């Protein structure tokens, strides 16, 4: 989060109401993305993510509020914005009439990149994204993963400042997903600002510097993944697994007696036959590892495992947006 100069993306009090709708698809959203950040927009289907991205990428006109890319007003000067951004959509919109390499060179030509430069850049990107061997084919025979990589290569052809990735690894096999994560980090390391949407909490956690969780057109929270995880009531927990337990209630009482422990709860599922597991909540659970082990040993049982459990982003997400299906 460099924070220097104007932000790469600035959204202020953005409202979008579609003509036939009674509610606002985006309902007063404000956020900023600094240059060089990877920013994640999370939320259930229909939360307003796609509409927000639509406004930022000039295909949706805001009803109220404003959106700026590098200080350029998206609604007032969409042409300048288009030259600065690139979009990788969820579903392939690759030009199926062109050959793979031409998809890249034509894209660059649309953006005024001179011929020599675009030819060289196309070859370089195709090699980097592992598509060099099949650059003279048409995309009909491309797998989902290859199409996704090609769309990313295409996005980079005019050297944009801000990249929008709409669910970049949706439906990809694990290899492609890891490969894409690598590339996303690489592009970011070269200074590209990235805004991505995803349903994949693991992905958001691993890639994003900051995450905004959206629901019903509003941003509920906007923070680093680490800070978001602290939002879960109880925060981090210490899990203690023990074997040879004679009286479960006594062990539980001993654990609860440790000073600073606010709550102890038995974990229902049996991780290993003949063992019992408890979860301890406290302000700073790391301080209670020793006492917890001693409490178990003091009751004549054996410690099999002690681990600090971080709440996952998924738990944060469900906590914020509820469990009901959309």
């Amino acid at each position, binding site marked *: 989060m460099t924070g220097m100069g104007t932000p790469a993306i600035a959204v202020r009090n953005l409202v979008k109401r579609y003509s036939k709708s009674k509610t606002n698809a985006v309902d007063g959203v404000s956020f900023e993305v600094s240059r060089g950040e990877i920013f994640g927009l999370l939320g259930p289907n229909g939360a307003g993510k796609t509409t927000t991205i639509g406004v930022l990428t000039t295909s949706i*006109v805001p009803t109220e509020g404003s959106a700026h890319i590098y200080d350029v007003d998206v609604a007032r000067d969409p*042409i300048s914005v288009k030259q600065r951004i690139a979009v990788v959509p969820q579903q392939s919109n690759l030009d*199926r009439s*062109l050959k793979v390499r031409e998809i890249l060179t*034509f894209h660059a030509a*649309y*953006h005024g990149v001179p011929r020599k430069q675009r030819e060289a850049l196309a070859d370089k990107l195709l090699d980097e994204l592992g598509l060099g061997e099949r650059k003279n084919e048409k995309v009909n025979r491309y797998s989902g993963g290859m199409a996704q990589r090609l769309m990313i290569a295409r996005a980079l052809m005019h050297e944009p400042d801000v990249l929008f990735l709409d669910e970049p690894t949706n439906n990809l096999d694990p290899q492609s997903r890891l490969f894409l994560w690598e590339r996303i980090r690489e592009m970011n390391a070269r200074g590209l600002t990235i805004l991505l949407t995803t349903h994949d909490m693991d992905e958001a956690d691993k890639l994003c510097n900051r995450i905004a969780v959206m629901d019903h057109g509003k941003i509920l929270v906007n923070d680093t993944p680490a800070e978001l995880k602290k939002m879960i009531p109880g925060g981090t927990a210490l899990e203690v697994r023990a074997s040879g337990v004679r009286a479960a209630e006594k062990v539980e009482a001993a654990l609860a007696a440790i000073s600073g422990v606010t709550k102890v709860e038995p974990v229902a599922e049996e991780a290993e036959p003949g063992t019992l597991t408890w979860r301890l909540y406290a302000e700073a659970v790391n301080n209670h590892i020793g006492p917890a082990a001693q409490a178990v040993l003091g009751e004549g049982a054996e410690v099999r495992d002690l681990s600090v459990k971080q709440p996952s982003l998924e738990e944060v997400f469900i906590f914020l947006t509820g469990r009901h299906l959309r």
Partner: protein
Amino acid sequence: MNKLALKAFFAILRRDIVVTWREFIPFLLQALMQPLFILFIFGKVLPNIGLASGSFASLMLPGIVALSGMIAAMQGVTLPLVLDLGFAREIDDRLLSPLPVWWVPLEKVLFATMRGTVASSVIFPLGRLILGSGYAVRTDRLPILIGMVVLTALVGSTIGLLMGTTIKPEQISLMFTLIFTPLLFTGCTYYPWGALNHIRWFQILVLFNPLTYAAEGLRYSMVPPMNGFVLTTLGLNWILLALGMSVVVMFALGTRTFYKRVVT
């Protein structure tokens, strides 16, 4: 900024030319198959078996030129647009290029006009080949002829733009039947407008079809005087006015619906 937008515009135009050039033979077949048979049956077979007079061919040839150009131009816009706006979204990459949104349909129209002009032009050698001695085209109105060919294609591509932006993918076959068929048969392609005198209501009805004016304009510039008799067509002023209005109205409406489909 304008320079950048112009570069984008010409790159998009170049893309269409490259793609079509690669498919040039299929494109020609598509454009020529129907006129080939129409010319053969109406210009050769019917006169030979005595069901039409020999001069029918030279009255009909301008109609075929108009029809081919208009259809090729329409097809160049309508089908790609219906699919693109419906689900393929291949056009998104062009919409994200640094040019005003309405330049994208403008490019489509310009390119389809080129397509239509080519399709019209190839009818001439084809006509000569099939009609043989029945082929008669006056050459003293060549500039008007060229203008009419281009204008006809332009009319077709702007109609195609409006159709392409309003038809939904699931309606394609129905709309083609509902729009194309009446367009083909009420466009004065197979008969000169003046000959409709006896069917007054029909003569008025066909005036609502832009193809009528295109066919009449081409007849004006192509049909030579026969036995000292000069064919009377619709007035050139009326023709130009009607075709010009059609282009302006169709392009304005088509661009408006295009914009509504891609920017919400």
